[in-house]
């Protein structure tokens, strides 16, 4: 008998207990088996200090689009922290805890005492077993995985084989003690625990991975897409959650003759990118809120001087240094409207790891062809969330070189900023023997010469905005799911929250609701027509996003000119379909 399975597992410990790495082993293993996986980690921003770590993942035989809001299985490596996660555990969920934990808790601080009656609690002597396997507490996380494997029907030999592959290159002793810990956990559970809960992966109807698959997170997808798009310069400054993009490219960009430079700050990083873009080469930087705030003036320059630049902002909790390791979607206003002056820039927000790749390729194409900065809004969740995806198809030659060059005869009286219907002016690059010009962040005439009269300013401003109209034709369309035609409720969301919205719509539709979702990976230019059309067919509009003020709702207000209901969450977690279902559940007929 095969069956469909959808289980949410959470491992919770304190910094230094291997929580996140246990999560990674589990998700990558399940993924390699063909499960659909959505994972989400959460950890403190301090290097040490006993902060709470949570590795959360959902493994399903069906397509899953968002992490689960409620947990089926909670694995407690640290009782004090895990107690705070209990409220998310389903009433009939499973708790796996260390029956002999490393710190001797007072009675009322053991998590077992906090589990509610309907829950099943399994105590495993993780510390003891880890000590037995390797002489220290380090293997507790692997003991826990052993218990999970045993309880939920994962073949131990498959897991040990995976561990061997995964840790290849590490010292044999380390690999060995990991495997030993795992096996001890497995065996102990097998002999001492009698399963009482209904959850299992056994007999799961796994769709065997078709075609070539690859496991990656959003940061990896962006880095890979940039390389595939012909990146010549990456300039960056470390900042969570974007640092990994730099570290990946630092390893790999050199192989293709590109350069990765770690700059002294984010202004310089953005400056290097603009310089490279001016010289006609593809370049990128990646940062997060505080760094993005520093790049504003440079982005404005790229707008005015019409220089391509790709800037990734992986959003985290704000404002200011804020919550460096928490999820939030609150840099939307800053990305779209943060520029001084009338300063249009393209803003994309990919919805998932696959989209991270596609949108990054598109960003390079659009930046170059339309001579404009492009901001890609990732977020903490997307940057770190691991998915098993089809090996992405690299961009073709046209995508990889989208420069618009002037015709030879135009070079006689060459106007670098020529007024055109499309708004795109033909562009020359340093090194080309004709077509020299001086670019500037001052307002300028069609030749690039600084000019301050009002007529010229208007014409040039119109031209700069016209490009955004022109590009609409080749930008990805909005995606609507759910009921067609007139609906009761329409849910608008953006970026990584749109998976939850689609999932919520699917579930609500199954219950007979007339409901639809709307999502567009293109934030600016706004898909005005699509927004209006969607709005027309919805009685109630909900805008669901992860910030306090409803930044997307504000952004589209001048287009919609109607009341919307705002679902705004700032919990530090990605959005789940349950969040949306619960919100619309409160609506009165």
């Amino acid at each position, binding site marked *: 008998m095969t069956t469909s399975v959808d289980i949410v597992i959470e491992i919770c410990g304190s910094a230094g207990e291997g929580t996140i790495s246990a999560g990674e082993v589990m998700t990558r293993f399940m993924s390699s088996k063909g499960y659909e996986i959505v994972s989400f980690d959460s950890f403190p921003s301090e290097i040490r200090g006993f902060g709470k770590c949570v590795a959360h993942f959902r493994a399903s035989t069906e397509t899953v689009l968002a992490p689960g809001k409620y947990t089926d299985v909670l694995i407690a490596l640290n009782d004090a922290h895990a107690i705070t996660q209990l409220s998310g555990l389903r009433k009939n969920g499973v708790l796996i805890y260390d029956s002999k934990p490393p710190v001797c808790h007072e009675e009322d601080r053991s998590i077992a005492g906090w589990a509610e009656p309907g829950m099943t609690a399994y105590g495993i002597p993780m510390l003891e077993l880890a000590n037995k396997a390797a002489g220290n507490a380090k293997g507790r996380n692997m003991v826990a995985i052993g218990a999970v494997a045993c309880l939920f029907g994962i073949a131990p030999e498959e897991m040990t084989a995976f561990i061997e592959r995964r840790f290849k290159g590490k010292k044999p002793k380390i690999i060995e003690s990991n495997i030993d810990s795992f096996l001890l956990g497995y065996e102990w559970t097998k002999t001492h625990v009698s399963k009482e809960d209904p959850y299992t992966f056994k007999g799961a109807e796994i769709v065997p991975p078709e075609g070539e698959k690859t496991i990656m997170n959003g940061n990896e997808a962006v880095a890979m897409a940039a390389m595939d798009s012909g990146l010549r310069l990456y*300039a960056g400054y470390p900042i969570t959650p974007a640092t990994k993009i730099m570290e990946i490219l630092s390893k790999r960009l050199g192989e293709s003759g590109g350069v990765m430079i770690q700059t002294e700050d984010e202004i310089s990083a953005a*400056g*290097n990118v603009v*310089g490279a873009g001016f010289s006609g080469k593809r370049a990128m930087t990646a940062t997060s809120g505080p760094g993005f705030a520093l790049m504003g003036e440079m982005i404005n320059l790229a707008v005015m001087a019409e220089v391509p630049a790709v800037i990734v902002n992986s959003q985290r909790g704000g404002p200011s240094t804020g919550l460096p390791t928490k999820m939030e979607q609150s840099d939307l206003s800053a990305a779209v409207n943060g520029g001084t002056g009338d300063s249009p820039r393209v803003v994309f927000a990919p919805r998932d790891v696959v989209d991270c790749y596609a949108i990054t390729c598109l960003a390079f194409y659009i930046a170059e062809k339309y001579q404009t900065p492009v901001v890609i809004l990732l977020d903490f969740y997307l940057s770190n969330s691991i998915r098993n995806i089809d090996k992405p198809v690299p961009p073709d030659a046209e995508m990889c070189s989208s420069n618009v060059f002037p015709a030879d005869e135009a070079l006689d009286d060459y106007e670098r900023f020529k007024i055109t219907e499309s708004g795109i002016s033909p562009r020359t690059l*340093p090194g080309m023997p004709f077509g020299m010009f001086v670019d*500037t*962040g001052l307002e300028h005439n069609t030749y690039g010469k600084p000019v301050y009269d009002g007529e010229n300013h208007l014409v040039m401003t119109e031209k700069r905005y016209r490009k955004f109209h022109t590009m609409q034709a080749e930008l990805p369309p909005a995606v609507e799911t759910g009921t067609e035609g007139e609906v009761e409720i329409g849910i608008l969301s953006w970026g990584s929250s749109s998976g939850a919205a689609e999932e919520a719509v699917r579930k609500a539709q199954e219950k007979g609701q007339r409901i639809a979702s709307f999502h567009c990976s293109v934030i600016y230019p706004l898909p005005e027509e699509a927004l209006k059309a969607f709005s027309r067919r919805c009685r109630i509009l909900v805008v669901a996003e992860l910030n306090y003020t409803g930044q997307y709702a504000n952004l589209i207000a001048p287009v919609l000119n109607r009341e919307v209901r705002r679902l705004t969450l700032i919990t530090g977690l990605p959005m789940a379909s349950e969040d949306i279902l619960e919100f619309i559940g409160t609506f009165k007929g």
Partner: protein
Amino acid sequence: MTYISDALVKVRGEGFLDYRTRELPTWCPGCGYFGIAHALLQVVGDLGLKNEEMCVVSGIGCAGRFPIFMKVYGFHTLHGRSVPIASGVKLASPELTVFAVGGDGDILGIGGGHLPHIARKNIDVTLFLFDNSIYGLTKGQSSPTTPLEQATGSHPRGNPDTPLNPVALALSYGASFVARGFAGDVEGMKSIMHQAITHKGFSFLHLVSPCVTFDKENYTWKRLSESVMPLPHTHVPGDHDAALRLARDERLMTGLFYQDTVRPSYIDHLEAQRQSV
């Protein structure tokens, strides 16, 4: 769009417009920057550099307007950011000859955080610091090189900030080429510019120049002409300690303070690392 008349071109003779656009300068008559521009345009000619293979990146200020007069690919960017933008041009397009241009406010004030890093990375850009010891374009406020107690627009009671020593800084940052010129000495500037442009790695040119409109006290033609003197003939440009000592001297010496001809440029360094893997 053409502003320099054919008559003037005739007077100046053949080749005058080889590297010069016909734009009229926005500089005040008598400004020292004319001398710097003059020297630079001649040097690139002497070096036989192709116009289109040069990229001149400038900041904002009177100095920042320089690219407007030069027939090259120019980029008049942001106040203080010529250095990172020029770095990006060079790293992405190493085949270009890249110049960064800025004033004392541009390079040592708002842009002062970038200078140590282009120097220690040894990115192959030639930096022309047009130092008039004042904020020219914003009409005469104190700059990081304004002498102590000089009265300025922002410090009518006298500038209370001890000035920085650009040459000493560049040396301390580990720049592999450091020289000083004076706007009144075109031949001297030509010589160090020539060496700087052909130097492999970052080169720093401190070019002292009067602002005839906003500084009547210190960096005037008269006072500078009197005080500037060439480096001692005995000075060897490989001697970093001596260079630093001379840079810190009260007297304003011109010439090549330091050059390291061995150290690889940033890109060459990366290439070597790549090879060795």
